[in-house]
C-alpha cells in the first residue's frame, strides 16, 4: 500500500482542496478538514522519512507512461536531495491550519492545493511533470495573495505573476530544447531526469537553455537581482501564504537547480558557477542590508528570507559535498526558522493589528513563552550553534572557502549581517518599554504552544542531532557532486585533445 505514498501525498490535498471548494461547508469545517488532511500527509511524511534508507538513489519510485509518443511519464521518487524539501512541505502545513482560525473556506482550500502541487513538484522525476506541478503550485499562491492579501495586494500579485510566468515560459522553452536534444542524440523521446543526465550538450544553445532554466529558478529562489517581487509579495500576502512562499516554494527553486539543472548542464554550470555564487553572495548582503532599514516587521523578514536564500544558493554553486549538503540541510533549517518567524509575525498582527516595528515594544515582559519561542527561531535564523541554522550555514561557508576564499569570506559576513537586523528588531519589539498596544498582548495559549512546540523542538533537535538528517541526504549529495566532476572532467579531456576540423564545434 505504501508504494503509492507519494501519489497519495500529492493528490489527497489537491482533491481535498477541490472538494472543499465545491462543497457547501462552513469555514470551521473546512479548517478542520484541512487540518486532518495535512495531518495525514504529515504522518505519511514521517513514515516515509523513517523508511528512507539514504543510499543516494531514488526511493519510493512510481513510474507510469503518460504521453508515450513524447516519452513523458508520470514518474515520482524521493532521494536525499528531495527528502528534506519534501519533509518541509509535509511537516509545516498543519501548523497553518492549527493557528489561523478565522480565514475563509477558499483560503484553506487554496492552501491544500498548494501543498499537493508543491509535493508533486518536489517528487517529480520527469521534467514535464515537474513543470506541470510547478505551474499548478503558482495558481493557489496567486489567488491567496490577490484575494486575501493586504491593502496593496493587487500590484504585488501582478508583480509576482509577471515574474514567475516569465520565468516559467523561459523554462518551458529550455525544457523543449532539452527534450529535442535528447531525441537528436539518442533517437528517442524522454524527459526522465535520470536519463537526461546522459545528455552531452554544448554550444551557444546549451548556454542559452541553461540560462533560461537558471532565470526561472533564480526568480523563484529568488537570486539577486531577480528578487524584487519578493518584498512586495511577502509583505502583502496573508501570513500563511508568506509562510508557504518562504518556507517551501523558495526552496523548490533551489531544489530545482540541484535536481534538474546540474545533471543536465554540468559544463555550463561549472562555467557559470563563480558568477552565480557571486550573485548569491551579493544578494545575501544586499537584502541583509536592506532588511535593517525596514520599518515593517514582515517586510524585514522578507528581506531576511531573501538574504538567507542567497546563502543557500551559494552552497549549491560551490560544487562540493559539504556545501551542497549544507544547502540541503539549510533548506529545512531555514523553513523551520524563518517560516516560523513569519507565523509569529502573523500572530502579532492578528493580536495587535500592526506590524510596524516602531509601534511595538516590551512584548517579552507580557508574553515570555512567545518571546522565548520567537528568540529560538530568531537565533536559528542567525545561525547560532545548537540550533538548526548553524549546521547548514557552517557547512556552506566551509564549502565556499574551498570553492573560493573570497566568496567564502563574503558568505561568512552573513554571520554579522543577519545578527544586526535581527537584534535591532528584537530590541524594538520585545525589549524596551511596553506601550498600550503591547501591554494587552496575551501570551500563547495551550493550542498555540502545542502547535509551535514541535517545530521549536525540531529547530533545537536539528542543531544538536543533525546527523539523523545528514546521513540520509549526504550520499545523494556526494553522488551528485561526483557526477558533475566526472562529466566535466571528461569534457575537459575532450576539449584539450585537439580534434582536427572539430575544434570550433565545442565552445
Amino acid at each position: 500500500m505504501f508504494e503509492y505514498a507519494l501519489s497519495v501525498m500529492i493528490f489527497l490535498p489537491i482533491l481535498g482542496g477541490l472538494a472543499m471548494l465545491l462543497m457547501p461547508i462552513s469555514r470551521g469545517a473546512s479548517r478542520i478538514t484541512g487540518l486532518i488532511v495535512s495531518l495525514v500527509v504529515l504522518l505519511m511524511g514521517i513514515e516515509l522519512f523513517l523508511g528512507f534508507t539514504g543510499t543516494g538513489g531514488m526511493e519510493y519510485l512510481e513510474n507510469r507512461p503518460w504521453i508515450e509518443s513524447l516519452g513523458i511519464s508520470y514518474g515520482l521518487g524521493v532521494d536525499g536531495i528531495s527528502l528534506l524539501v519534501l519533509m518541509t512541505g509535509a511537516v509545516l502545513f498543519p501548523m497553518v491550519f492549527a493557528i489561523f482560525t478565522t480565514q475563509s473556506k477558499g483560503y484553506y482550500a487554496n492552501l491544500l492545493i498548494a501543498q499537493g502541487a508543491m509535493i508533486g513538484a518536489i517528487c517529480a522525476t520527469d521534467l514535464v511533470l515537474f513543470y506541470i506541478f510547478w505551474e499548478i503550485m503558482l495558481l493557489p499562491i496567486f489567488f491567496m495573495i490577490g484575494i486575501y492579501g493586504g491593502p496593496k495586494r493587487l500590484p504585488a500579485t501582478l508583480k509576482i505573476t509577471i515574474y514567475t510566468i516569465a520565468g516559467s515560459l523561459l523554462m518551458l522553452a529550455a525544457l523543449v530544447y532539452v527534450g529535442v536534444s535528447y531525441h537528436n542524440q539518442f533517437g528517442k523521446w524522454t524527459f526522465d531526469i535520470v536519463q537526461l543526465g546522459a545528455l552531452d550538450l554544448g554550444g551557444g544553445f546549451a548556454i542559452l537553455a541553461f540560462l533560461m532554466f537558471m532565470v526561472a529558478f533564480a526568480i523563484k529562489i529568488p537570486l539577486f537581482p531577480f528578487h524584487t517581487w519578493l518584498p512586495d509579495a511577502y509583505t502583502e500576502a496573508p501570513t500563511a501564504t508568506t509562510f508557504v512562499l518562504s518556507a517551501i516554494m523558495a526552496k523548490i527553486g533551489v531544489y530545482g537547480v540541484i535536481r534538474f539543472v546540474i545533471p543536465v548542464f554540468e559544463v555550463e554550470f561549472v562555467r557559470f558557477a563563480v558568477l552565480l555564487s557571486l550573485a548569491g553572495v551579493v544578494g545575501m548582503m544586499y537584502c541583509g542590508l536592506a532588511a535593517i532599514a525596514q520599518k515593517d516587521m514582515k517586510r524585514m523578514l522578507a528581506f531576511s528570507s531573501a538574504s538567507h536564500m542567497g546563502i543557500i544558493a551559494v552552497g549549491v554553486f560551490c560544487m562540493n559535498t559539504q556545501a551542497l549538503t549544507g544547502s540541503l540541510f539549510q533548506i529545512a533549517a531555514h523553513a523551520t526558522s524563518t517560516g516560523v518567524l513569519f507565523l509569529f509575525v502573523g500572530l502579532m498582527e492578528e493580536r495587535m493589528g500592526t506590524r510596524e516595528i516602531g509601534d511595538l515594544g516590551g512584548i517579552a515582559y507580557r508574553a515570555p513563552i512567545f518571546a522565548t519561542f520567537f528568540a529560538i527561531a530568531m537565533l536559528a535564523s542567525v545561525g547560532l550553534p545548537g540550533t538548526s541554522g548553524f549546521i547548514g550555514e557552517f557547512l556552506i561557508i566551509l564549502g565556499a572557502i574551498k570553492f573560493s576564499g573570497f566568496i567564502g569570506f563574503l558568505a561568512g559576513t552573513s554571520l554579522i549581517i543577519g545578527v544586526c537586523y535581527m537584534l535591532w528588531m528584537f530590541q524594538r519589539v520585545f525589549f524596551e518599554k511596553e506601550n498600550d498596544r503591547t501591554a494587552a498582548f496575551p501570551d500563547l495559549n495551550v493550542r498555540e504552544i502545542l502547535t509551535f512546540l514541535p517545530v521549536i523542538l525540531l529547530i533545537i533537535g536539528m542543531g544538536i542531532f543533525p546527523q539523523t538528517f545528514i546521513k540520509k541526504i549526504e550520499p545523494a549529495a556526494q553522488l551528485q557532486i561526483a557526477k558533475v566532476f566526472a562529466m566535466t572532467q571528461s569534457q575537459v579531456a575532450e576539449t584539450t585533445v585537439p580534434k582536427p576540423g572539430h575544434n570550433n564545434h565545442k565552445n
Partner: protein
Amino acid sequence: MEHTAAYLGLIPLLPLTGALVIGLLYMFTCTTNPLPEKLYGALACVGPLLSFFLALVVFFHLKGLPPEERFLVHNAYTWFAVGDLHINMGFLADPLSALMLLFVTLIGSLIHIYSVGYMAEDKNYGKFFCYMNLFLGAMLILVLGSGPVVMFVGWEGVGLCSYLLISYFSEDTNNVLAGNKAFIVNRIGDLGFVLGMSVLFWAIGASGFDYLSLRANAHNLTPAIGITVCLLLFVGATGKSAQIPLYVWLPDAMAGPTPVSALIHAATMVTAGVYMVARFSFIYAHFPIAGSVVAWVGILTALLAAIFGMFQKDIKKILAYSTVSQLGYMFAAVGVTAYSAGIFHVFTHAFFKALLFLGAGSVIYALHHQQDIWKMGGLKDKLPRTYWTMLIGALALSGVPPFSGFFSKDEILFSALATGHTGIWFIGVLVAGMTAYYTFRMIFLVFHGAPRDKEAFDHAHEPPAVMTIPLVILAVGAAFAGVLNLPAIFGGSLNVSQWLEPSLVEHHGHASIWLEIMAMLASIGVVACGVYIAYKKFGQGAEEPVFTGFAKIGYYKFYVDEIYNAVFVQPYKGFGSIISRFLEPKVTDSGVKLSSWLYQKAGTAFKALQVGYVRIYALYMIIGLSLMSLFLSQTIN
C-alpha cells in the same frame, strides 16, 4: 578511565539542565504566579557545584596519570559527518582544559552563590539564573570541546548569554544597545573564527578535525596557510577577548548586573580567546610572525586600555578597562609563545578580577546602585570586609608581591624579555605602573578620605554573608594562587607550567637569572611609583577634577566609539536606507518596471490600430494576406 571520561559530557550538561529547568519553570509561571526566589537560587547553585565536584574528580584523575598520558576523550556521538568532515560531539580533558575547568566551575559556583544575595530584589530572578546556568554550560562546552567546531558551540553560546545578560535590564534602551553591540562585535570575531576553522579544515582536517588529530598533522601546514589560520583565529580571539580593534564592546557590557560582569566579562568568557590561542599553540608556535602580531596587538591593547582606565569615573568601567588591559597582557604572553604564563595569568586574573568586581558589586549594592567613584569615599569603616578583600584584589591586580598577580604578570614580562621582545617588555612594565595607579586611585577614592555623598554613606551597610563569603574565598585565591607557579628564583618549580606542559607546544626563552631579577625589580619599582602617585593625588581625599587636554581625550576614550560609529555603523545603516529607499525601488526593480512600462506603451500604440471599424480590420487582414502572398510567390516556380 572510561568511567571518568564519561563525566566530561556530564559537566556541561548539569548547568544546561539547570538552565532548562529554571527556564521552563520561570517561563510558565512568571506572569501568573511567580515561584519563590529561594527555589530558583537553590536550583541555580546545584548545577555549578556538581560540575565543580566532577571537575575535581577529573582533575585528580588526570593528576594520577603519567604526564604524557594525561588526556581523556569522550565522544558522545557523531555530531555531523559530511564527506571528509567528521565532527564528533566530543569532550577532551587534558591538563590545559582541566585547569580551565577547575577555576571556571569554582568561580562560577562562587558567583552563583553571590548572585543569590545580590539579585535578591530583582523581579526576574528566575530568568537571571537561567541565563547564568546557560552561560556556565556554554563556557564548559567551550573549555571541554574536543575540536574547534565543538568549541565554537560554546564560543557562540557564551556570546549569546553575554548578550542576554548585558541587556538584562532591558527596559532601558542603552542596556539593550550595549547587548547588541557585544553580540555584533563578537560576531565579527566569530566570522574570523569560522573562516579560520574552514581554512584549517581544508588544509589538514581531512583525517580528523579535533585537537589531537590536528596537532598530529600540524607539521603539514604551509607557512602561508598556517599564518592565515593563525591570524583568522586571532580575529576571533580579539572579538571574544576584547582586543584592538574589537575591544569596544566590553566597557559597554558593564550595563549588565555586576555578578555578570564578574563572571562573564572578567573571569571566564573574555579569557576564551587566550584559551583558544593556547589550544592552538601547536600552530601558533610554528609561526612566530603570527605570534608577534598577537603579542603586539595584546600589549598595545593593554596600553590603550590602561590609559582609558586612568580617567574613568564609573567604578565598573575602571574595572572593565583594567580587564581589557590584563587581557592584553595575556595575549602578549601567548604571542611570545609563553602559553603557560598566559594561562597562568588567566587563572590568577580570574580570582582577583572576579574579586574586584564582586567587591565593586558590594559597594554598589551598599550604596543603592551608585557607580560613580567621585560620589563615594570613606567606606573603609562601613564595609570592612569588602574593603579588605578588595584591597587584596587591588594589590594582586597591581602586581605587588607576594600576591598572585605579581607572579603571573612577572612571568609574562620575563618571557617577553627572554624571547627578545624588548619593546613588549618595556610597554608591559609601563602598563604595570599605570595599572597600579588607576587601581589605587579607585581604592583611595572609594574607601579612603571623607564621604562625598553623606546621605548614601549613612545608609551604607555591609551586604549579607551570602555575598561576603564568596569574596573571602576569592580573596584567599587572589592572595595565594601565585604560589602554585613559583619561579625557580623563589625556590619554586613552576608547577602550573609543568602541569600544562603536555597540552602546549612552547619554546622557552633562555635568559640569565640576573636579567630575571633586574626585570622583576624594575617592574616592582614602577608599580611602587604608580601606587605612590595615586596615594599623593587621592590618598587624602580629592575633588573631582575637570578633565582638560589629554585627560579629556582619555576620558572620552580617544573617541573610538564615535569614530567606529561614524566609520562603520552609520555607513552600514546608510547603505540599508540607500538600498531600501533608492536602489531597490529605483534601480534593481527598474527591470520589471521597464518591462511593464514597455508593455503599457506598446499597448497604447496598438490601441491606435484598433479603430473599431470592421472594414479597417479587413484591411489588416488584406495587408497580412498581401505580405504572405509576396512571400509565397517567391516559393512558386
